[in-house]
């Protein structure tokens, strides 16, 4: 059963002001309805005026994603009633979008590069936000916050060309990184990237899954929906063409009431706004270095593997961090940052920007010098990260090594330790001599325990075999 997935991604642009009025978009720490004016409240008589910065940001995305920008595009009204929509229509774009075509290249599930074609990119305004309060049948009520009303969005629509949830995740990772590199979007902002997905099994009806509010939820939502559809097919149950909502907390999709699907949005051109004739702006737009270009440069400049380069450039802040710490030891910095640090950060849900750069560089230098084992270095890293989380002043790795006595044991002292461990475990030694595999692992473990991880296991194994040869 072939899976066909298409995505619609809404991205909030991080302009200073809203799309059609002068209200600030930075309402995060402020109370409800504090960033509003007659225009974004939809008061009678108000008129929209297009924010040029938002158009430029959208064009920047269009250029970075290789789209074509038609000479003429226009805003349209999408009419529907909902309490978060003050004008009872959303200003969006309909049959004349800002940009058409374009593509994003991702790593295909089958290996190699895959080009995912885009259908279009258009601009629109965000509605307000509903806050549901109270409980029980009588106590329930809903408040409306219009702070978000009028925040600029772009909607990026792909062709139905993704073939698995994993590819969808890769696509979104690449898109998210590109948007971040372009500096037009704030990944820290809640709900700044929202995804709707169209999913079908080849030969069957298409289902739209809405309300995937975090891009991390996409893989889960898609996996659930595909499993559901495959199950229906196996049971010979019909798959109906419908809209389903993703319930993030439960990780399931549920059917939207059919009433909501019967919308006739009565689109027509927004009479209060002149058409956009902005294709001539595109050549003037200067793009920054984008993820693919940076990945290739990392491989060339630092001589690191493609996998490491892809991981390190998949997030702007991570790439910037790597360049700060890599300098003359990229061969250590790359695996440490991509394989170890990233895992530790994800585990702690900690942004890379919080990692103290001098401490991390000092740690890499200790690793490079060979003064601590990898195990100890990880312990030191964890300690530093935890200190940052606890808002303590982090210790320098050198101090930690001294304080905890983590200096790597080697030379005579390690040979002495091995010798005494061998003396204590004569039975295991006998097993080893008798050719029992596993005995050596037990002995290495005992030495590691005795040195509290400060010795290199490979080195210990070698010493053990050397000592027992005699």
């Amino acid at each position: 059963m072939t899976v066909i997935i298409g995505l619609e991604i809404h991205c909030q642009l991080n302009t200073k002001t809203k799309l059609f009025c002068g209200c600030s978009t930075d309402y995060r720490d402020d109370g409800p309805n504090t960033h509003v004016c007659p225009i974004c409240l939809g008061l009678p008589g108000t008129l929209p005026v297009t924010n040029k910065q938002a158009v430029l940001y959208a064009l920047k995305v269009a250029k970075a994603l290789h789209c074509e920008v038609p000479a003429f595009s226009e805003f349209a009204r999408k009419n529907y009633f909902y309490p978060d929509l003050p004008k009872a229509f959303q200003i969006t774009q309909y049959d004349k979008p800002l940009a058409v075509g374009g593509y994003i290249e991702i790593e295909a599930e089958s290996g190699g590069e895959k080009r995912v074609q885009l259908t279009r990119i258009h601009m629109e305004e965000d509605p307000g936000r509903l806050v549901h309060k109270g409980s029980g049948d009588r106590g329930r009520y809903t408040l409306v916050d219009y702070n978000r009303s009028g925040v600029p969005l772009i909607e990026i629509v792909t062709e139905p060309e993704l073939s698995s949830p994993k590819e969808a995740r890769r696509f979104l990772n690449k898109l998210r990184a590109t948007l971040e590199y372009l500096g037009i979007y704030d990944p820290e902002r809640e709900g700044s990237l929202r995804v709707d997905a169209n999913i079908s099994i080849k030969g069957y009806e298409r289902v739209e899954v809405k309300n995937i509010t975090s891009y991390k939820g996409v893989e889960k939502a898609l996996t659930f929906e595909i499993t559901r559809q495959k199950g229906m097919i196996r049971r010979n149950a019909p798959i109906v063409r419908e809209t389903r909502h993703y319930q993030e907390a439960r990780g399931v999709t549920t059917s939207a009431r059919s009433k909501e699907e019967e919308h006739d949005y009565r689109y027509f051109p927004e009479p209060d706004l002149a058409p956009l004739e902005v294709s001539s702006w595109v050549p003037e737009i200067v793009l920054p270095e984008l993820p693919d270009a940076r990945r290739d440069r990392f491989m060339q400049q630092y001589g690191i593997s493609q996998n490491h380069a892809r991981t390190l450039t998949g997030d702007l802040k991570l790439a910037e961090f790597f360049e700060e710490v890599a300098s003359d030891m990229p061969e250590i910095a790359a695996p440490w940052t991509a394989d170890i640090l990233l895992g530790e950060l994800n585990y702690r849900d900690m942004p890379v920007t919080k990692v103290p750069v001098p401490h991390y560089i000092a740690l890499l230098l200790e690793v490079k010098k060979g003064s601590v084992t990898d195990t100890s270095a990880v312990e030191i890293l964890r300690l530093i990260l935890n200190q940052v989380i606890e808002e303590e002043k982090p210790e320098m790795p050198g101090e930690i090594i001294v304080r905890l006595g983590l200096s790597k044991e080697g030379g005579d002292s390690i040979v002495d330790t091995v010798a005494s461990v061998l003396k204590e475990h004569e039975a295991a030694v006998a097993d080893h001599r008798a050719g029992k595999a596993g005995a050596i692992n037990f002995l290495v473990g005992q030495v590691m325990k005795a040195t509290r991880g400060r010795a290199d296991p490979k080195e210990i194994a070698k010493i053990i075999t050397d000592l027992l040869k005699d």
Partner: protein
Amino acid sequence: MGSQYSFDHPDPHNAFITICHEAEYGEGPLSGIPVAVKDNISTAGIETTCGSNILKGYIPPYDAHVITLLRSAGAAIVGKTNMDEFGMGTTTETSAFGPTLNPADTTRAPGGSSGGSAAAVASGMVHMALGTDTGGSIRCPASFCGIVGLKPTYGRVSRYGLIAYANSMEQIGPLAGNVRDCALLYSVIAGHDPRDGTSLDLPAPAPLKPEIAGKRIGVPAEFFGEGVDPTVASVVQSGIDRLEGLGAEIISCSMPSMQYALAAYYVTSMSEASSNLGRYDGVRFGMAPDFVRLWHDAYSHIRKTGFGEEVRRRILLGSFALSAGYKGKYYAKAQAARQMVRNDFARLFETVDMLAGPTMPCVALPLGETSNPLSMYLADILTVPANLAGVPALSVPCGTAHTLPVGLQLIGKHGAEDEILSAALAFEEGSA
């Protein structure tokens, strides 16, 4: 600022919805002049209802751009005038605040939808007033009340603060007892406003002087077509003869797109209105909903009780014209017809300077006589073409028929308000 204008007139014609008995005024070209404002133009601190129950109690927190201009020109804003609900009518009878009486004959309607503004001027309560014109709503009552009214070029006057009925066609414009006052008020409100994305940046209006000699004036045969009262036609024809007598060259011409104009106008205006009026849901302003209900029930209750019959009719027809399956047949066809009207004007204006004809096909109608909406719609046939094409047009008194005022309509080229005002002044003063 700081001077007070005491406005203490009785209002026997029900011209006003709100009267400001004490109005502040300042220095400027309109210093101390009382000006009445149609009640669909937002005035900070003064209730603005659009003639509708649904906006009763709504006090805008901001001034429309034209109000800012009026205030800085020193005008005293003395009240908000009656109108057809949301501008939807040709008689001012669809107002939730009762009909306005025509000062020329109080058994008759003043025309609409700016009937209150026209009556306030015609009765002498004020010298000038602001109206709005979506399909003739300034020119119709000007014609029926025997005063002067101008619909400017689309984009010439900022619509910021004008409560929308049909955005792509409407303009705010002046009504006054004579051409000079009309031009004075126009010169104050015309100009570019960055808050209106459709606003034009044109040179300031030129000083007014009578000028008609040598002008080429086209008279489309369709302006005197079927449905035009013969007495009105002959009064206007003699007015056109007077223009010729003043040295204008009269050229017969044709405007075939007229046959589609009315349908194009109504489909477009109702479609836009159906969208514009969606926001009246009782959540943020105006009539408050019953919060015990579910939101969709509260919405439909508010809209059912808050809007009058004509407004509901136009919202429904407009929603239908935009709906899937019918949009191509109605909205899209209307836009094509609208382009034909524009093309006709462009073609005619290659050879003539302006067009002339009757403003309305009839004289003011008796109150209560327009219960049939279709016959009311037909009365707009001569005024809607200028709105469809966005060109300026005015109505200037031309005499009487059946003892009631008749207006002569002059339609100018895009941006040529000065030219039609100069011609109207020459016509009014009888000198070239």
